[in-house]
């Protein structure tokens, strides 16, 4: 299932945040949306979902307009993990995860799927606990499990590893990669460029004036990093994998 953006523009009130963006997210890929704070990563995800109106362009899944789909049909295709997602009431964790089945007209999750998403997010031990009593990182994992429970072909996750300890950052990224093997697409926003290099197939780089979309290994080069993030770094191969080393603030080139 391919998600395609055709010249889309999103914004709030009189402020345009994302303008004239086109990209096609292919099945089975992990895509990182990268960019500085406030550049429009979350806005883009909300625009794709139809949570904010599209000012121009179209968002299509397999040539069908996402925004003209009935809400339940759209929800079955696009799962969403909100940034700093939480649950207002102290409902048990397993119950919160089950709410992900809402697009299918039920609030009951079958045991096999519950087991799978809990295993992916390492939330077994939390199953009976009230969700409001969890730490920030634990809650993020539970909310990711809730988004995975939708079992949609496309997952949009807004900073899914923010606030996680290093072990769980790596584990969640590896599991999301695994998730795409069954023909699903994962599109996530990230700030850790090494996680993007190690676990993502493609990156969408958002800048103030323009964007770049393409293969992670070729796009995350020193020139682009300097232009989009105002940092200098070396891209080097460590144990057969490209990594960013020697980060420092760039002294020139802030026009991106």
């Amino acid at each position, binding site marked *: 299932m391919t998600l395609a953006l055709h010249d889309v523009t999103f914004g709030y009130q009189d402020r345009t945040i994302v303008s004239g963006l086109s990209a096609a997210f292919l099945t089975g890929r992990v895509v990182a949306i990268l960019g500085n704070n406030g550049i429009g990563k979350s806005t883009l995800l*909300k625009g794709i*979902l*139809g*949570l904010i109106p599209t000012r121009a362009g179209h968002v299509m899944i397999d040539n069908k307009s996402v925004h003209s789909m009935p*809400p*339940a049909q*759209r*929800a*079955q295709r*696009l*799962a*969403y993990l*909100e940034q700093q*997602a*939480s*649950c*207002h*009431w*102290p*409902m*048990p964790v*397993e*119950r*919160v995860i*089950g*709410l*992900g089945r*809402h*697009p299918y007209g039920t*609030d*009951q999750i079958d*045991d096999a799927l*519950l087991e799978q998403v809990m295993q992916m997010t390492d939330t077994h031990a939390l*199953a009976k606990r*009230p969700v*409001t*009593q969890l730490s920030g990182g634990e809650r993020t994992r539970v*909310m990711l499990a*809730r988004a995975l429970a*939708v079992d949609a072909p496309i997952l949009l996750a807004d900073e899914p590893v923010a606030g996680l300890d290093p072990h769980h950052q790596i584990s969640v990224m590896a599991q999301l990669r695994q998730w795409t093997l069954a023909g699903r697409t994962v599109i996530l926003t990230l700030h850790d460029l090494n996680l993007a290099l190690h676990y993502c197939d493609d990156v969408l780089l958002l800048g103030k004036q323009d964007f770049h979309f393409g293969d992670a290994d070729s796009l995350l080069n020193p020139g682009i990093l300097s232009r989009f993030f105002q940092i200098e770094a070396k891209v080097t191969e460590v144990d057969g994998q490209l990594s960013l080393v020697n980060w420092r603030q760039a002294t020139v080139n802030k026009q991106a």
Partner: protein
Amino acid sequence: MPSPVARLHSRSALLISLSLVLIAASLLSLLTGRGSGLAWPEWDWQTQLILWEIRLPRTVLAAVSGAVLGLAGAVLQGWLRNPLADPGILGVSSSSALVAVVAMYFGLGSLAWSIPLAGILGALVGFRVLLMLTGKESGILLIILAGAAINAFCSAMTALLLNLAPNPFAMQDMLFWMMGSFEHRTLDHVLLVLPPAGIGAYLLLRTGRSLNILSLGHDTARSLGVSTDRLYWQIGLGCALAVGASVSTAGVIGFVGLIVPHLLRPLTRWEPGQLLLPSALGGAALLVLADILVRLMPEGPELRIGVLTALLGGPFFLGLLRHVRRQEFMP
């Protein structure tokens, strides 16, 4: 994870328990007379008359009012994700009371149907004004602020009407009506109230699953297919019809819609959607019991049920807040 069957059993047990309490309270209400207290009646024509014409309408109206207040409170607390929300928060109960007082001011109170109709009309007008102020899809804060503005305006207008009452008796009538009572209500009132209360309750009961999802936040709920603007209409119209029907026949009765959902929430695993039916049953039982208590008071002017619920509800709610604080949970 508890199996769906186990969860159904615990929910069924709660619903059956509350239903039994409501049935017992209703029977007790039919056996309780003002002045005569609790007594097993002789089955003569006078008793039948008292049962059919006085106690049955009173009991049914108390149950219906309590049910819609408990239900509306549970829905609004879930929708606004605010444990302090009550049926008055949208301004529909104060607008209902205002239009009913206007009808009384102009001497329409003697017609049995005029006050209930005025009250329901007032609630619908209040909802229309709320929509005008907020637009069809608004944030929680704007809805609460608009409701507060409607409440303030309607309270001021009601006070003005009391102030300008043509005579002390008219003022007393209006004031006593506003304090809430089921005295002198007939089967006509029941027939007038049941359709809007029923339609309103139906609309509110249908919101359960969406309220569960809204616990995850507005954007996540929309991403899961919840139509938040339709939900706003459903809840606003449901509250206007149901709460308007209650206010129009019983006056303004506070605390039921606030306390009942609080009491029952831990028994429903904190799920807003699971709380609705239990809150309706709990509210009905509570108000029928409160109305019995009113009739068991010593001779003299009847204590208004709105005064009684506030007298009992205030301290009870304070105790509940202390308990909640100790549990380290305050959403």
